[in-house]
């Protein structure tokens, strides 16, 4: 896809993520929206995956370690043909196959069950190491949250990946500056992610997480690097692409009142018109 097509794909992902969340009127809006452009680049351009090859061990793998962003992944999987649109509107309802946090046994296209923070990144390093020793050339991508990096287990996984020189492991840090209770700098200051990952033995890149061009370029660069795993620090905004949510102090999980519902639905509508589905 060229960058115009990826931007359009990102708008589609954002549109269906919002529609899916709006349907129930509550959910993890903030952290779902901040990874939309990254998902668009991954699924639009980079990941060698398809519904037909979802069980092929030579495919690329993707682990959404920040599992609460599941709704954005589900919208993406719908657009890629893994699930049908009607599934989206079952999110979090009784008996659904789309729980808040991804479940690989329920949703086709989900490579690893995540939601207990810190575990997805470890599993991703296991997948990447397994692929490496099996002699596969595929890549394992993982998105970890900036708040999630509070978890000690993340740093175990990071040490493991560096020691094992997993150069086909690409880790995105969704640096949207906020965690559930507020700003990351106020709760437990992460300081400088790039310096930390470099010190831990990673190639470290940075990208504007709202720019599909920069994200794509960073991944291309990551794939040219060898001997070390790659961290791409994404400068993002929690609630990205929906001004009403971006402006909220607390936007990790929203339960919409009438005003919020009207504002968010207006943005959803606007995006729908842009992408030609409304």
């Amino acid at each position, binding site marked *: 896809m060229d960058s115009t097509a990826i931007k359009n794909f990102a708008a589609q992902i954002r549109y269906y993520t919002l529609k899916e969340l709006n349907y129930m009127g509550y959910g993890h809006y903030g952290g779902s929206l901040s990874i939309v452009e990254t998902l668009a680049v991954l699924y639009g351009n980079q990941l060698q995956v398809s519904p037909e090859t979802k069980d092929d*061990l030579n495919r690329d*793998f993707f*682990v959404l370690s920040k599992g609460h962003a599941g709704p954005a992944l589900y919208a993406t999987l719908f657009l890629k043909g893994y699930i049908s649109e009607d599934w989206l509107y079952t999110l979090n309802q009784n008996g659904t196959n789309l729980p808040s946090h991804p*479940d*690989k*046994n329920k949703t086709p296209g989900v*490579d*690893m*069950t995540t*939601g*207990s923070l*810190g*575990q*997805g990144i*470890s*599993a*991703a*390093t*296991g*997948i*990447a*190491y*397994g*692929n*490496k*020793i*099996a002699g596969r050339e595929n890549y394992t991508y993982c998105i970890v949250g900036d708040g999630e990096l509070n978890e*000690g*287990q993340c740093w*175990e*996984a990071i*040490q*493991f990946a560096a*020691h094992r020189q997993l150069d086909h492991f690409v880790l995105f840090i969704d640096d949207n500056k906020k965690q559930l209770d507020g700003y990351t700098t106020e709760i437990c200051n992460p300081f400088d992610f790039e310096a930390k990952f470099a010190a831990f033995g990673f190639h470290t890149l940075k990208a504007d997480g709202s720019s599909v061009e920069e994200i794509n370029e960073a991944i291309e660069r990551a794939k040219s690097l060898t001997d070390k795993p790659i961290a791409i620090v994404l400068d993002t905004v929690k609630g990205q692409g929906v001004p009403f949510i971006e402006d909220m102090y607390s936007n990790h999980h929203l339960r919409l009142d009438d005003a919020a519902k009207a504002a968010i639905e207006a943005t959803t509508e606007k995006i729908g018109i842009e992408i030609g589905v409304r």
Partner: protein
Amino acid sequence: MTFEAKIGKTELREVYRKFLLDKARKDDSIVVLEADLSSSMSTDKIKEELGDRYINVGIMEAQEVSCAAGLSVAGFKPYIHTFGPFASRRVFDQIFISVAYAGTNVTIIGSDAGVTAEANGGTHMPFEELSLLRAIPDAHVYEASDDKCLQAILEETYRTDGLNYVRMIRKNAIEIYPEGETFEDGYKLLREGSDVSIVASGIMVADALQAADRLAEAGISATVIDLYRVKPVNEAALLKAAETGAIVTAENHNVIGGIGSAVAETLAELKPTLQYRVGVREAFGQVGKADYLKEQYGLTVENIVAQAKKLVDQKNKVGVNV
């Protein structure tokens, strides 16, 4: 027939090491993970031969479990080891989510069961693994009584997808079984009696057999069962135990959640039976030799015998219909 308690020739860690090597030679999907305790377990001796399939993650038990889950997703069959407390209570959420809930295939070996942690003391002495693991849906939970039993358990884990947890001691166990013994489905009926049953696991199986001999001297005939698969428990084995109308369970483990609980919970629904649980009660681990610690916690032949006699008296007094 009386039971002669003699130490087996083969260390249990040697059984584990040989099992891994044997399987890894035939099956490329076998991977072995350690968390900086490979020399304690002696798996360091197979490091060279296994090459990339031997993974010492360092002192990172959470990573060890979740990474193993990832290896399963990538098509591998991981066997992971650390000491029991770290293999269970330290990583309970990783086992629960990355392995059981995610439906990955991982076998976890928790060594140094209960009092056999000896000089490592309270921090390293696990009395809770079975309680924790039994609470996980569809887990397969085992405790090995000797080297032949461990071999049978390991073969079963190789055939069994999902979460397997094996509780074992590292060194030589008292020999329970002869070479070439075959094992039934999750249990072994070692003695058949009519007055009382002793259901035991791990190192307490040897004590159960000695207790049965003592009881025989007192004219009490005892059934003895090695319940080496604690979950899923074989109900037929427990109904067999219930036939005597009185059961003593014996475990090197907390009485809450281990085999005493497994027996009580199962029979409470199928056939309520008088029971006493020999095991650790409201106590933490401590340093000491295993024999000393067994005395401290009442994990002894004498205690099993005394409790069995009490139950037989009780059964006769209340006239339990068996």
